[in-house]
């Protein structure tokens, strides 16, 4: 599970995945960090989130933005746009903690390659997934090694 602040919540629900993660790295000057924080504030503001949500289909990251979008009647017009938000607001379980995956790019390349081979009939689904599993485990072991694991 991703780290969370107890000051914000003591009962984290589903984690976020895919393309929505922004990280501020350590080792910068205070004024640069302040700028980064201001930028994050801007991104997280309801107006920005509603715009982003409506234009791209990404889910908003705050409930305030969700409510603002609902007020504007977005879900009356596009009911499907609300489903993801409702799902992500469900309670957490054992298998909903997201993942942190190094060399994900290479793993995705392995997956793309094998999917391609499935579609051209060069391999069976089972064989393809066996290869994906083996090669991904290998890459994950390599990532674990970078973390002293």
């Amino acid at each position, binding site marked *: 599970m991703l780290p969370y602040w107890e000051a914000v919540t003591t009962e984290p629900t589903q984690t976020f995945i895919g393309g929505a993660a922004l990280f501020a790295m350590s080792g910068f000057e205070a004024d640069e960090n302040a700028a980064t924080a201001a930028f994050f504030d801007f991104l997280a503001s309801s107006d920005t989130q509603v715009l982003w949500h409506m234009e791209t289909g990404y889910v908003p990251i705050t409930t305030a933005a969700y409510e603002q979008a609902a007020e504007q009647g977005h879900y009356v017009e596009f009911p499907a746009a609300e489903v993801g938000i409702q799902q992500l607001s469900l309670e957490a379980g054992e298998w909903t903690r997201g993942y942190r995956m*190094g*060399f994900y*790019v*290479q793993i995705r*390349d*392995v997956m*793309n*390659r*094998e*999917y*391609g*081979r499935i*579609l*051209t009939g*060069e391999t069976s689904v089972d064989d393809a997934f066996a290869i994906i599993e083996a*090669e991904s485990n290998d890459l994950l072991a*390599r*990532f674990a*090694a*970078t*973390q*002293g694991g």
Partner: protein
Amino acid sequence: MKRAAFGHIGFPILLLIPQIAIIGIFFYWPAGYAVHSSFFLQDPFGFTSTYVGMDNYTRLATSSNYLDAAKFTLIFTILVTFFALAIALLLAVKADKVIRGAKSYRTLLMWVYAIAPPVAGLMGVMLFDQSRGNITQLLGMMGIEYRLGVNYWDTASAMISVSIWKQIPVNFIFFLSGLQAIPRSVREAAMIDNRSGTARFWDITFPLLAPTGFFLLIINITYSLFDTFGIVDTIVKSEPGNNPMTLVYRVFVDGFRGGDLGGSSAQSVVLMVLVLVLTIVQFRFLERRIHYT
């Protein structure tokens, strides 16, 4: 070294400084950096670095992905080199023979030299496109189903064709100038001795062209290995998937996209060794050839 050299010391050093500085910073430093990082394992975010000895190399030797790329690169290099040389030689021999329009032919056959590999690749993508490519349609009429980007060897054949096309002009220029360097007296003697054009070509012209040919062989191998990056990248549209990849493309995919500095550096070092060996072979052979002719 010229005998009548100037005796100054400071001035020549001043002249050499820009060259030495540039290759020091942008050649030796990165090359050394590559060798150094090939013994380390870095995490994809660049925070940690662990010494792993030869691990990155043994990994390459056992990685089926890498070995596939190596195998494909070998086939690719052989085919591109062979056809680019053969077609160019044929055209050069003919261009050397004809009198009318010789200059026009030379121009028409060499200008493609100036087209950048990715631009050639873009043309290839449009011609070989899976649904609307003109060549795909042509093959379809002949009952051949051609699927660029889906079928491994279909993609490979597009890469190979475009790479050959792009390399013909250079080979043509060198072969033609090699042919024109053959003295008139030799040609005339050959004409008298040997009536058949084909036999004359294999007995006289071909051996005399051997040094040019050997030099071009090396040039074409390096071209296939390195300069075709733009063609490979455009034809797979930057998403290799289950398409073939050359070794240089792998360096790029693993290192630049995948963030595996150690693994990519080890691949770079392997390529460096390969080029070094190639160059040594070239020097050895060329020297012997020069004595021979």
